[in-house]
């Protein structure tokens, strides 16, 4: 009985050893957590520099996803809210209405909404946009460049080697910090 009692009793040495082991494990955990946190903080993601992009259309077809992670976005503060939006209308549009034959976007992803005479707002219907950049060309050619392409991070799977970046003829793809993943155009960038 005495031997059993003795074996169940924790002596000072065991307590010290166990304490040191526990502290070591705790420290290891804390270090791993800190390193993990730092890694997440320093994570980089892909983004498209709108000032280098030439809207070549390759974003639509080179993404590994069936539906590209690149979509058109709109900086409303730069937009002229034109009745005759060259990002919305074909250069040969016969009428300034919403007829499909007059629209520039082949997938009908730009939505035109009347605001007040003579202003219209243009919004991107994201599920319809395939990132071809045709509207971006029209907007850049005549307008303010308020329509532009961006990698959408709710879709992008952040491949190590982005296949669009490899194919991009303008070298417009960059690695940017995950905590600031978009390269948004601002007022003053217009031509």
């Amino acid at each position: 009985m005495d031997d059993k009692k003795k074996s169940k009793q924790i002596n000072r040495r065991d307590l010290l050893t166990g304490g040191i082991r526990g502290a070591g494990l705790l420290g290891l955990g804390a270090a791993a957590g800190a390193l993990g946190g730092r890694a997440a903080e320093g994570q980089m993601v892909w983004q498209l520099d709108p000032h280098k992009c030439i809207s070549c259309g390759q974003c639509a077809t080179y993404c590994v996803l069936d539906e590209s992670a690149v979509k058109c976005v709109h900086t409303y503060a730069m937009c002229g809210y034109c009745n005759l939006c060259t990002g919305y209308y074909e250069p040969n549009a016969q009428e300034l209405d919403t007829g499909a034959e007059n629209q520039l976007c082949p997938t009908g992803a730009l939505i035109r909404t009347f605001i007040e005479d003579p202003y219209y707002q243009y919004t991107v219907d994201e599920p319809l946009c395939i990132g071809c950049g045709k509207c971006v060309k029209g907007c850049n050619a005549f307008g303010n460049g308020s329509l532009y392409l961006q990698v959408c991070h709710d879709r992008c799977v952040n491949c190590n080697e982005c296949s669009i970046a490899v194919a991009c003829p303008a070298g417009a793809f960059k690695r940017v910090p995950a905590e600031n993943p978009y390269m948004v155009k601002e007022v003053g960038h217009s031509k």
Partner: protein
Amino acid sequence: MDMKNKFGTSSNAVLFVLVVAIAIIGAVVAVFRMDTTGQKGSGLGDAFDYDLSEHRTVDPALILYAEREDLKMEVGITAPRGIAVDQADRIYVIGNEKVVVFEEGKLVREIGVKGPGRTLAVDENGTIYAGVGDHIEVYGPSGDFQGAWEGFGPEATVTSVAVAGDNVFAAIFDKTRIVIRYDKAGAIINRIGDKDKERNVPGFMIPSPFFDLAMSPDGLLRVADTGRHRIEAFTFKGGLEEPFAWGRFSNTEIDGFCGCCNPCNFAILPDKSFVTCEKGLTRVKLYSPEGEFVGVVAAPEQFARHDSIGNEKGSDCSSGGLDVAVDSNGTILVLDPCLAQVRVFVKKTGTSKVDPDA
């Protein structure tokens, strides 16, 4: 039952090897045909092309002016944006932090300005009124700084300045898009272009920061209402003279103004004709004092560098938008911001008083 040929191998094994070989060859060919670097383009169909080439073509018979290559001037400043001519036909160009002055094609003076210069006008005494950022700076004929007028805030740009007698007019591109009439001390006299139903003034519709004005010899101020593709006429007190307004949109017909917002800049010849610049389809055209299309001064093919904006890798031209001025002989001076040059256009022989080979 497994058949064996004369070499003692099973025909099934041969078939298996053949299939594997074809698969490997097919895979190798597929890998080599893969376009991982984008050399073959997007593969999207014609519906995804944005092609303005047919609109850039101009009937040569409509081109009334010829460029004098021998007279062009390298402005030697970054981001040149505005050009003006004084009464002695000296040429002034403004850009980032500098005005340069040319006399008979030679650089005669450089004047520092305190920011991104965009536009300027010179009065009969040689005083320079320069639009720099959101305000106007005044410089004496020798380039001495005489003062800066109160600005309109960080979101505003003075896009054009004109002088008429004791009045200075400035087009302000900010949320309101307005023309301000100043006296020469910089005090505001009145605003021009505020939406006013009673006076039948609809307000300016200016989608992009190209908002030009010029004083006509007929005594009315002309303002380019670019979103309406019109040049409008105003009295000094802001009355819109509708009968004198002209212009219409067309991408397909040469007599109209193209795109969302043109003409981006214009000038008025001594005979009251208008010289207009357009962006998008970069071209310069001539209209009668009544606004009837007369002909083309310079066609889009003469501004090929402008087509690269947003379309070519590493284009060094990030900002289009020609500016234009005219001298007392009717010579047309076009500031080409992509080439940082003043390009000189004169009427072709037989169509004008000016002989290009003279």
